[in-house]
């Protein structure tokens, strides 16, 4: 079945105007590589939409926001390159079933967790979301990781306890892993060894993603360079 010219134009216009659902939007983005005509239409409508965007009244953000963003960038690795890792193909091998889940945090306990100052979307929002879910897994080498996520917010966070501290030239790095086994960095963190820590993953969670953690050289890697110590799926 081939798309008519009208279909392609309709999708491109809807995409640029922002009228698609998140799922439809991802479909368009996936098709951009396959269809030069769709890509050309999206480009034209994108420039058109940008002119609508530039017609709005400008609003100056407070200086504190600039400080916060530039501060966050100092710690945030640019690791958006997508890679395919064969070892991600079967995350099931690394995961612990829901029956073995360890619930780290219940009720009011969440409020006591500390948040990194630069995180735009806190763990509390994810936990409070109507569709919030969680799953836990033990880590090879000790410790427990609980993933909390919300498909509607497209955000995820991890609650970490008793994870080993790493040498100073190593860091933990989190990854979103899609069903094709492609990994995109979700940021790095250092384990404190004993305390419960919460870390909001940088970037958006797509429905069906798994979340994995690897040990990387400090600063993080563009692509996972070691076997993950844990992988937690968000879909059974």
């Amino acid at each position, binding site marked *: 079945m081939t798309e008519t010219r*009208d279909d392609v*134009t*309709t999708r491109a*216009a*809807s995409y*640029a*105007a*922002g*009228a*698609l*659902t*998140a799922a439809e*939007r991802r479909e368009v983005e996936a098709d*951009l590589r396959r269809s030069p005509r769709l*890509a*050309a239409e*999206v*480009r*034209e*409508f*994108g*420039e*058109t*939409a*940008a*002119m*609508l*965007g*530039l*017609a*709005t*009244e*400008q*609003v*100056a*953000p*407070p200086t504190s*926001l*600039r400080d916060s*963003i*530039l501060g*966050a*960038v*100092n710690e*945030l*690795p*640019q*690791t*958006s*390159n997508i890679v395919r890792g064969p070892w991600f193909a079967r995350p099931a091998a690394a995961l612990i079933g829901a029956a073995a889940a360890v619930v780290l945090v219940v009720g009011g306990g969440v409020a006591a967790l500390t948040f990194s100052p*630069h995180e*735009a*979307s806190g763990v509390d929002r994810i936990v409070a*979301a*109507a569709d919030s879910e969680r799953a836990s897994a033990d880590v090879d080498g000790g410790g427990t990781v609980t993933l909390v996520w919300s498909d*509607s*917010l*497209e955000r995820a966070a991890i609650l970490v306890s008793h994870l080993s501290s790493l040498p100073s030239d190593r860091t933990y790095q989190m990854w979103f892993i899609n069903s094709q086994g492609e990994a995109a960095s979700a940021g790095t963190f250092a384990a404190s060894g004993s305390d419960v820590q919460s870390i909001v993953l*940088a*970037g958006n969670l797509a429905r069906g993603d798994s979340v994995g953690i690897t040990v990387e050289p400090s600063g993080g890697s563009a692509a996972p360079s070691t076997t993950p110590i844990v992988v937690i799926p968000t879909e059974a």
Partner: protein
Amino acid sequence: MSSVVISLSDAGGERRRLRAEARRDARLTIVPPATESTQELSIENLLMEVAAGDRTAFAEVYDRISNRVMGLVTRLLRDRAQSEEVTQEIFLEIWQSAGKFDLTRGSGISWVLTIAHRRAVDRIRASQKSHERDLKIGIRDMERDFDSVSELVEIRIENERVKRSMSRLTALQREAVILAYYGGYSHNEMASILGIPLGTVKTRLRDGMIRLRDELGVNS
């Protein structure tokens, strides 16, 4: 060029214009200092430097376009605190994914505003409130949006084009474009707000976007 009227509220624009003229005149005789030329890198060039990990370039991108980004986000979200939060998410995404910016896919500002619009719309749709927006609120928002678009374009020469282009759309096409882009409504929400079939919404929005594209002279 006899009748260019500049209102009081465009005093900043007038100052900028005069400053730009002064600068241009100055360049006829003197070589601009190095810092000037850094400032004149295009957004596209800056984004490529950001992709290479240049934090100074990132700060420059922020300084150049944060007012634009915050303006669009505020229009969509209305709420000041949420708009700041989403603006932060947007700039962190720009930092992290600058490597994905591809000049062959469009301009730098279009790439940035696409991210901004998407993030703002996601925030609207994630909040429970948005699902409760009813017909009345939708229409009222739409009218207010169009009024302020009209107001804005009165005083800004580049937006004169947007205003003129918008006026070439049918009322129904304009309504669809405004609800989608400035209101953040999905196809389905628009169909329910307007009480028309989904297919009709898609067609109106498509035809409106085509008309706008052609009027604004956007070519591939």
